[in-house]
């Protein structure tokens, strides 16, 4: 038997199932909810239900959205012939934040990972191929993360795309020294990439 009343125990149990929240954090959050206004609990419960009921995948880019197609896919100004391929919705948000990219996205929902039993058929790669012919895409930017699996996914997609469309421009996001980084602490692969993809200085 737990030390808290049953209903509170249940809330702690549910909260502790969330990623990154252990028993202690769950108890702290549950006690905070208990001390707060009823309005907070109602808003929280309603937004949790709304997320499950309203959020779905955009039928074009497969990003998460309230409306189908999503805001970016229904914006005609963003149909500039470039398509940025990302691993997941979080990556799309990160690329959207600076506001410099004006094209559209395609969300793969994962990377090739034989260790976890994830192969090409488990990602939105076929959907990407059909989009490219339908939407008159001229450039595909491969923005998967520079991990072993992300890099392999990028080269697998590049190889698959080039089989059908030799005229397609395929680019990969740059790799190198990050802002505020320190060369002394960089690994050799990052330094190698940074030196290979060095840019002319423009004044």
């Amino acid at each position: 038997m737990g030390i808290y009343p049953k209903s509170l125990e249940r809330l702690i149990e549910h909260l502790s199932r969330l990623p990154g929240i252990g028993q202690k954090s769950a108890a702290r959050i549950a006690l905070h909810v208990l001390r707060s206004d009823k309005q907070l609990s109602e808003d929280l419960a309603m937004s949790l239900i709304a997320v499950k009921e309203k959020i779905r995948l955009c039928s074009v880019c497969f990003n998460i959205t309230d409306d189908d197609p999503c805001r970016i896919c229904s914006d005609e100004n963003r149909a500039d012939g470039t398509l940025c391929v990302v691993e997941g919705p979080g990556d799309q948000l990160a690329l959207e934040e600076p506001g410099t990219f004006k094209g559209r996205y395609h969300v793969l929902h994962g990377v090739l990972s034989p260790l976890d039993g994830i192969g090409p058929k488990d990602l939105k790669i076929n959907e990407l191929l059909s989009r490219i012919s339908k939407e008159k895409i001229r450039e595909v930017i491969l923005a998967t993360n520079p991990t072993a699996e992300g890099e392999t996914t990028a080269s697998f997609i590049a190889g698959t795309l080039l089989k059908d469309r030799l005229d397609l421009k395929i680019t990969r996001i740059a790799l190198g020294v990050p802002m505020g980084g320190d060369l002394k602490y960089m690994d050799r692969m990052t330094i190698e990439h940074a030196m290979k993809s060095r840019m002319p200085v423009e004044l």
Partner: protein
Amino acid sequence: MDMHISPSIIMRIKEFGESDLIVTFFTRDHGRIKGVAKGARRSRRRFSNSLDLFCLSDVEYSLKSNGDIHFLHSSKLIKPFPGIRSDFSALSLASYMIELTEILFPQNIVEKRMFELLKNCFVLLSQGERMDCLRIFFETKAMSLGGYAVSLDKCCHCKRIYSGAGRAVFIPDRGGISCLKCERESEYSIGLEPEAVNILKTLQSESDGSPSEILQLDMKIINKIRHLLKLHIDYRIGRKIKSAEYLDW
């Protein structure tokens, strides 16, 4: 807590909390270890890109006396094996090697020769060695180190010494060969030419030389040994290896 530094192959990584990683790595000195790397996803100094899958890194870690999860202090990249990162077939084979190692060597079982085998195979894979040869090379040696070497010296039924001249039959449930007097060839008990038996012997010994040199690039022998190893591994391991599905893509 004891502090150690070992060259290690990164086997699995899993995001944990805001910025931590749970890392499984195969060390030269303490076998397979699982540990938490605090702040690794944000770290630019302590872990700087050295905890990616299949990388060879010098890992500094402490072993906890109780529990399975140990503690990683820092790591430094030694070899990233770029050839594995650019090709799906290479990634699949590297994943297969990792999975087979995990099955054969449970946590904290120390086997320096297995670490060297895994490292050398990753070097060869990254350099573009023929994957069918490399797979046979790894499977034979890994099974051997794991205690499941194919018995090739005598008939597993009548115990007659195999002279290395005649045809033999592989019996999966015995993990060895039989003479033709004791066993007939079938789909399950495959027949082996003396060359195939001798090459397997060489692979199972502490042989030097590259996999394609040992296998002499004879497709008939390669296919025969591959079939034998599949039967042998399926029988001994008794479970599905996830990444095996992608090896022939």
